[in-house]
């Protein structure tokens, strides 16, 4: 049985001619060598009856055989504070924090550590499954002394914890106090121990929060024994702290009488939009976060009166650390490419092959950043059409683990098929999760990154979703002999509408679900300034996401209020740390998909796709160009996903949700199965009649409308649309309609 053993990623997702891109590859045992080539991707779907895989070799310096090696990934989030004068000469010690452990019974986990294990110098504060709080102190002779409180902690509760060491009398005090009030609480308590020998508390190792160090790699300490849960206001003091000190240090500034004795007190309620943790003591011993722990989360003192971290940062001074979060694999590059100057814009991949092994590290060659570089193209881009690759949505779905962890049988109404790629992903929890998964501690995944292998974002992935489904559009454009540039969400986010305005027409892919504010603004402005938009999918423009300029390849999203979703954000955690924007459905921020493209997500199902029927609106002279040469009443009763063009996720028009009043609904789908169910945000009371057979709202609408200055929008309303383009060697009504619209949208004559 085929077992996948090779995967990689690139440092960039979209590069212009002349720019460089690096590729990182990891091979498992048995793959000693592999062949790498750069190819332009033409087609991907290998299912029987599908177009198959096709590519075109781009001759580059990359082509050649490479040595296969296994590259380590260090997942898990923590903070690093370099050693400095703040921590010099420690003899006595005071430690404290508020903690909210989410997996206290899993294994020992480190809250804060500054330990030189070899020398036996330093300190570390742990949570232990059986003992609760544990303090380790170096013995100065290569060992540690350990002191335990002796009461296990309860999961998902806030505790105030502290540990002190008094060198004069050799006394260790431990304290953990549940901040909630429960009858029969047995988890709160204190313990006093006497040290056998004078402890060696001072060392020059870096300080870690939420992890212990397993040594240096790639220029920084690697965390292990990572704490799952929230930590708030950790403090390191150079003297024993009493109960009054501890209470005073929990929130607010460091009081004048404590300033001389505080090594550091980190206020996580500052610099939310960065990786910085801020020490508010006079020492300013700031630190840096690794692997994107969750910021802008509720602290121990959250009252519920404020729902935004902007309004009460002191109530959001906690960070949620996770043992499986990941920003950047930081692998060594295997090869690098400078995009040759004359490379046409397109969808490309580094194709890796070794025996029966294969991987495609997919990237985009965008058009030149400066149009003058291509004088032969005049003032325009290299083509009149741009295909917009939804890299934000690729990142949201990248490494989705649902199929192999729980099976998606009820969603699909069929047995789940596990591919070698899915088993490979399951062998690699270290590659991180998709935004559809939970972290190990049950917390929903609200950050993603493309600086890691995204196993299902591949042109040939057997689950036809995102890139693998979008290959149907690429294959169709190739078959039509239409010149097109390829641009990405990230290009649009960075360049704004100016990038889109190079083109007469912008075409989306099958499921552009995740949008940042700059992306939404750019696309909307394009439609308002005479641009033509072909929305070739379903459930687009649904969730709001955020990028951070200083964190390339990372993305944030919160699943707030409602929406079709696999997890929900905690109350009070609906604002995104990256930008401070309100997260969740764009609808809840006053921007509906219907107002942008005329239709919006209404229902989903994954067993059988259906078809569209033409409407009276389709006879309107304004829509005549759409149906030129199409006599059929039934549209798209065929397709490579579920057997129809109306399938998977469906969008319908709605005046109430903002469909422009002059929009034409030119076709509507019907006869969806009961596995198709209306989205929850559009359901008031739950009724028995929610399936496709009973609920007439469960349908997709194909919408056309003109926009100001001669522009227009055509929206297919269904993820399944593009899966029908290939049918009958592209000679079918879906292909014909799509071509009709594209021809008209490339024609500069104003539409209205």
């Amino acid at each position: 049985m085929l077992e996948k053993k090779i995967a990689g990623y690139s440092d960039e997702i979209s590069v212009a001619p002349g720019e460089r891109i690096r590729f990182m590859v990891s091979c498992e045992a048995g793959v000693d060598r592999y062949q790498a080539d750069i190819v332009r991707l033409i087609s991907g779907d290998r299912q029987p009856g599908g177009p198959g895989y096709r590519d075109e070799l781009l001759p580059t310096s990359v082509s050649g055989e490479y040595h296969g090696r296994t590259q380590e990934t260090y997942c898990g989030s923590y903070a690093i504070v370099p050693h400095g004068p703040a921590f010099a000469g420690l003899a006595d010690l005071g430690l404290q924090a508020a903690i909210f452990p989410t997996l206290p019974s899993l294994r020992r986990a480190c809250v804060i550590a500054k330990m030189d294990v070899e020398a036996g110098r330093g300190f570390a504060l742990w949570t232990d499954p059986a003992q609760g709080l544990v303090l380790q102190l170096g013995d100065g002779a290569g060992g540690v002394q350990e002191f335990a409180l002796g009461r296990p902690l309860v999961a998902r509760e806030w505790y105030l914890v502290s540990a002190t060491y008094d060198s004069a009398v050799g006394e260790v005090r431990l304290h953990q106090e549940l901040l909630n009030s429960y009858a029969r609480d047995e988890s709160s308590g204190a313990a006093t121990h006497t040290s056998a020998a004078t402890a060696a508390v001072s060392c020059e190792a870096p300080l870690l929060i939420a992890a212990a160090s397993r040594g240096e790699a790639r220029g920084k300490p690697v965390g292990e024994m990572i704490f799952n849960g929230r930590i708030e206001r950790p403090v390191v003091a150079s003297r024993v702290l009493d109960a009054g000190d501890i209470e005073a240090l929990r929130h607010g500034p460091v009081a004048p009488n404590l300033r001389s004795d505080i090594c550091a007190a980190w206020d996580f309620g500052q610099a939310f939009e960065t990786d910085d943790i801020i020490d508010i003591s006079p020492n300013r011993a700031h630190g840096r976060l690794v692997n994107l722990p969750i910021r802008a989360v509720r602290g121990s003192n959250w009252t519920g009166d404020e729902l935004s971290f902007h309004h009460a940062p002191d109530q959001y001074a906690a960070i949620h650390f996770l043992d499986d979060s990941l920003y950047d694999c930081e692998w060594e590059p295997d090869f690098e490419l400078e995009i040759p100057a004359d490379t046409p814009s397109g969808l490309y991949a580094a194709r890796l092959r070794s025996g029966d092994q294969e991987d495609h590290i997919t990237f985009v060659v965008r058009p030149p950043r400066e149009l003058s570089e291509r004088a032969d193209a005049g003032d325009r881009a290299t083509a009149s059409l741009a295909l917009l690759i939804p890299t934000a949505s690729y990142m949201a779905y990248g490494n989705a683990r649902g199929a192999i962890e729980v099976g998606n049988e009820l969603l699909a109404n069929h047995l789940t098929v596990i591919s070698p790629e899915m088993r490979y992903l399951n062998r690699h929890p270290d590659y991180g999760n998709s935004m559809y998964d939970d972290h190990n501690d049950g917390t929903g995944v609200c950050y993603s990154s493309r600086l890691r292998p995204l196993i299902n974002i591949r042109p040939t992935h057997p689950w036809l979703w995102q890139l693998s489904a979008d290959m149907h559009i690429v294959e169709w454009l190739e078959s039509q002999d239409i010149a097109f540039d390829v641009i990405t969400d990230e290009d649009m986010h960075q360049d704004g509408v100016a990038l889109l305005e190079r083109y007469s027409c912008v075409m989306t892919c099958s499921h552009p679900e995740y949008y940042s504010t700059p992306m939404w603004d750019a696309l909307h402005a394009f439609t308002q300034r005479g641009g033509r938009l072909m929305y070739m999918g379903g459930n687009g423009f649904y969730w709001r996401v955020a990028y951070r300029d200083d964190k390339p390849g990372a993305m944030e999203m919160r699943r707030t209020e409602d929406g079709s979703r696999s997890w929900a954000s905690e109350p009070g955690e609906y604002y995104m740390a990256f930008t401070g924007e309100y997260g969740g459905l764009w609808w809840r921020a006053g921007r509906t998909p219907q107002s942008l493209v005329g239709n919006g997500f209404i229902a989903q199902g994954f067993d059988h796709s259906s078809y569209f029927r033409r409407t009276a609106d389709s006879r309107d002279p304004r829509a005549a160009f759409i149906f030129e040469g199409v006599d059929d009443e039934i549209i798209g009763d065929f397709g490579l996903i579920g057997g129809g063009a109306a399938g998977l996720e469906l969008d319908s028009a709605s005046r109430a949700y903002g469909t422009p009043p002059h929009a034409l609904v030119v076709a509507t789908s019907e006869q969806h199965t009961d596995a198709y169910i209306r989205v929850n945000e559009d359901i008031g009371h739950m009724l028995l009649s929610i399936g496709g057979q009973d609920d007439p709202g469960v349908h997709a609408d194909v919408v056309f409308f003109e926009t100001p200055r001669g522009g227009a929008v055509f929206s297919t309303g269904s993820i399944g649309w593009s899966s029908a383009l290939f049918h009958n060697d592209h000679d079918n009504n879906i292909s014909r309609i799509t071509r009709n619209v594209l021809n008209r949208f490339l024609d500069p004559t104003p539409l209205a």
Partner: protein
Amino acid sequence: MPSQYPIDPSRTDLAHEFMANPMGPHSAALQRIVTRMRDTEAAGRYVLVTRVPYQEWGLAQLSGKRGVDLTMIEDQVFTSIEDAERAVFKLRWELITGVPLALD
């Protein structure tokens, strides 16, 4: 807790319907049974495993735990998804009703 919808083992007419068209769509009465069967715990859930892409599948049970591989059921190999659906339907019918599914 799994679904509580009862499956009446005397309704072999519904089993016949499934065997004739395992990929559906199903009648409302059959879909209730199929939904009951598909609504199981993750650990132990039957899944198909690709042996030869688009040609041959094995039967396995999920571990229900991240990082823990599924367990192959060695003697169950299928050359069509339809046959795999039929086989799992039979397995689950007996598992839920306690009565082996006997069809002429």
